[in-house]
């Protein structure tokens, strides 16, 4: 099993993701955004951070990094592609997921645990979870407020592609309290909160594990 964890200039969660995936039995490998070959990878994670300083818009410059062609190829082939926080924003900018994120409703950086409700299990991120599960996971973002045209939101809702929703208070003003979505194939998923930061007891919550376990479970084994 081999997961590419992509590092852009300004990415800062790659080691957390690498560590958490290793704990769950995956074989992650950090790859640089200028790499152009992911032929050995059966899945990809775009981790959080501030790629390219979040200049212009979050994810806007990263979306054109050389590696993104490979990420797009893997996504088209049905391989699991997961974007966490800044990685989610890249997937939106790249058009692999619909919508965009804008500044939080209260214009403040949010850095705390939030409760998420699992609202669909038809994705590489939620396959092992149960609808209605409440997960306590850190949110760490300024531009985490998910928006999309009304017609696009209606499609996401009707197709059951909203996989995670903020439970209780909506922390950032996100449309319909959306915290995570998936594509039609269920193999590309993005979320604003950080499951890797809730993957061990020492971190105060292990609720992110079920999400990462789903991702790891969806990876094809590497052919010998």
């Amino acid at each position, binding site marked *: 099993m081999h997961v590419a964890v992509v590092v852009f200039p300004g990415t800062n969660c790659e080691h957390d993701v690498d560590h958490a995936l290793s704990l769950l039995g995956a074989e992650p490998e950090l790859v640089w955004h200028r790499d152009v070959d992911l032929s050995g990878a059966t899945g990809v994670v775009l981790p959080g951070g501030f790629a390219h300083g979040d200049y*212009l*818009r979050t994810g*806007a410059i990263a979306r*054109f990094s050389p590696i993104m062609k490979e990420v797009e190829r893997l996504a088209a082939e049905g391989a699991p592609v997961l974007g966490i926080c800044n990685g989610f924003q890249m997937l*939106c*900018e790249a058009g692999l997921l*619909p*919508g*965009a994120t*804008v*500044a939080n*409703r*209260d*214009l403040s950086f949010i850095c705390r645990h939030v409760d998420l409700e699992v609202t669909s299990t038809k994705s590489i991120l939620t396959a092992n979870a149960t609808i209605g599960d409440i997960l306590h996971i850190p949110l760490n973002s300024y531009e985490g407020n998910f*928006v*999309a*045209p009304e017609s696009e939101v209606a499609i996401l809702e009707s197709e059951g592609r909203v996989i995670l929703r903020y439970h209780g208070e909506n922390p950032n*003003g996100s449309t319909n309290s959306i915290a995570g979505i998936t594509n039609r194939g269920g193999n590309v998923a993005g979320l604003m909160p950080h499951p890797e930061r809730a993957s061990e007891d020492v971190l105060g919550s292990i609720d992110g594990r079920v999400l990462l376990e789903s991702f790891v479970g969806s990876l094809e084994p590497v052919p010998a």
Partner: protein
Amino acid sequence: MRYVVSITRKAGLADPEGTTTAAALTNLGYREVRDVHFGRTIHIEVTDGTSTERIDEMCRILLANPVIEDYIVEEV
């Protein structure tokens, strides 16, 4: 030659900075203020003869996100 691209948030999307600033202007007595929108401007130096369409293409591909932003292109 130089173009200026002005990018603003699409109507209907929250613009808390604009709303707050509009309220501040109104409180100062500028009753004629109906709304304030924040955005950003990008000045682009290009070789002479570069068409507006070319700048428009740059906006669509990279500079603006059509999901959340509108833009106008002006030659200055």
